[in-house]
């Protein structure tokens, strides 16, 4: 029986491994970093399963394929089905109207309804509520996947994959640039803060002219604040401007965030193709699955299903590039 070698234990690799195992295939995983951790960009993700919100600035497959993610993850890790709240400062209300025009799956709500959903948001008179969206803790999700895979007998090799593998599935993200020349890195910066004084129970997005700013509750007063999008491939550190903008967003949501402790600063590069959509590409004997961009947790399930379709049944789903040599 074929043993599939998954290269890379980020969200793409683990999702592919999990999907293959669920279909009865045998897999093993290679990653020199070992188990999921800060060396992979999916460690720094927001973990929002928000296809309708993302569709505001993304192409149609993100909306359609993203909707499969919530149930896929629910079978594997804890998810929170509490929807997403989108708000804007008074001066940015045109942006809220624009956001509403570009997507659907929401109801328009007023300040009173906002306070009903999130009692500690009282500065906002209008918002959009996407009740079918969900979120998860991305680190817990990765660890859960890794644990389940091990329980299913999958071996994790803490080393580079050998060069000439048959049946390899390369999920190395930006490291796969040595083979995927049209892959680029898009810098993202995020913060993890602790602020027990404020209680928010669902992801809240604050519209901003240049980036989607959001805050995702991680429980116990911990929040993830994200995320910038910069066409840069320098992931060495966060800039003061980015940190100011992230913290200002939290402060605008509730001034009590001014007292938050900063627990972590995350900076990494999202792997992306020119249209910012993921691809499955067969090069020689290796299948590459890459380009999840800012939609790691949202699109990894669809990517994994596409890889499994190709690997096990030779079905070319829509993410499959023309085979290249």
């Amino acid at each position, binding site marked *: 029986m074929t043993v599939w070698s998954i290269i890379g234990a980020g969200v793409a690799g683990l999702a592919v491994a999990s999907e293959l195992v669920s279909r009865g295939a045998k897999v093993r995983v290679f990653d020199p970093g070992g188990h999921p951790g800060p060396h992979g960009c999916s460690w720094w993700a927001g973990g929002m399963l928000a296809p309708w919100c993302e569709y505001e600035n993304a*192409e149609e497959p993100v909306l359609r394929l993203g909707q499969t993610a919530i149930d896929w993850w629910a079978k594997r890790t804890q998810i929170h089905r509490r929807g997403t709240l989108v708000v804007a400062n008074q001066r940015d209300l045109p942006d809220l109207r*624009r956001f509403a025009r570009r997507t659907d799956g929401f109801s328009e709500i007023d300040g009173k309804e906002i306070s009903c959903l999130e009692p500690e948001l009282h500065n906002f008179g209008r918002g959009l509520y996407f009740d079918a969206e969900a979120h998860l803790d991305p680190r817990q999700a990765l660890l859960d996947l890794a644990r389940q895979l091990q329980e299913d007998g999958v071996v994790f090799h803490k080393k580079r994959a050998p060069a000439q593998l048959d049946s390899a599935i390369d999920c190395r993200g930006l490291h796969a640039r040595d083979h995927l020349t049209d892959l*680029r890195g898009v*810098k993202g910066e995020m913060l993890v803060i602790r602020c027990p004084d404020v209680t928010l129970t669902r992801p809240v997005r604050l519209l901003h002219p240049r980036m989607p700013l959001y805050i995702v509750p991680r429980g116990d007063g911990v929040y993830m604040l994200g995320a910038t999008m910069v*066409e*840069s491939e*320098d992931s060495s550190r966060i800039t003061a401007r980015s940190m100011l903008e992230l913290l200002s967003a939290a402060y605008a949501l509730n001034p009590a965030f001014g007292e938050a402790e900063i627990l972590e600063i995350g900076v990494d590069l999202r792997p992306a193709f*020119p*249209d*910012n959509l993921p691809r499955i590409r067969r090069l020689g004997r290796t299948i590459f699955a890459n380009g999840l961009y800012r939609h790691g947790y949202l699109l990894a399930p669809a990517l994994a299903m596409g890889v499994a379709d190709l690997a096990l049944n030779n079905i070319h789903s829509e993410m499959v590039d023309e085979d290249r040599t």
Partner: protein
Amino acid sequence: MKTFYGTALPNPLMLGTAQYPSPAILEQAFRQSGAGVATVSLRREAGAGQTFWQMIRDLNVLVLPNTAGCHTVKEAVTTAHMAREVFDTKWIKLELIGHTDSLQPDVFQLVEAARILTEDGFEVFPYTTDDLIVGERLLSAGCQVLMPWGAPIGSGRGLNNEYALRAMRSEFPDVPLVIDAGIGLPSHAAHAMELGFDAVLLNTAVARAGDPAVMAKAMMQAIAAGQLAHQADPIEARDMAEPSTPVIGKAFLS
């Protein structure tokens, strides 16, 4: 036709490269618009954005790097030098922000930076207000192009002060003038060209439209229409109707 530091533009549209949903859509927008110039921000993408910069070079249009996000002369001068290295061009769109909410140019620092950069051999495209005296100072500082705002950056309000822009056009008949910022709709861009401006620079109106490529095409057509209209010497507006056929001497059949 006026030139920009000796270069004639194939199309009087200068299109920004920020805020598109993806590089693929950016490229489609450029193809649809036929824009002659791509403006690109170095500061926001500072660091090693080599892949993105290569995509801009691959658009095969003239590149006008800008100093967007700079608040001081020193920052702007440093950014300009970096731009010259990255894109191998003397052109620099000089943007010096003076006010956080309106992103209004700080015209005092602008004149100073324009002088420094011109002496350094740069060809400066200054983003300025519609103030005539500032325009004169920029020309004395060595600028050979002026880029007055239509309205604040990203506001999409069109030409806020048509009177001032007309005055600028007639005050500087031989200087290439570009409306930079504030364009929201093709009609705004056409309006600028009808007033006799030599080009239009825009970004948000295309990049943040629901379909950037289609909006880029609409802008291109509007700009062409406005330019033709200006060349055709439009009629004056009047208060009363002017019949297009004579009414006196018609046969009355009642």
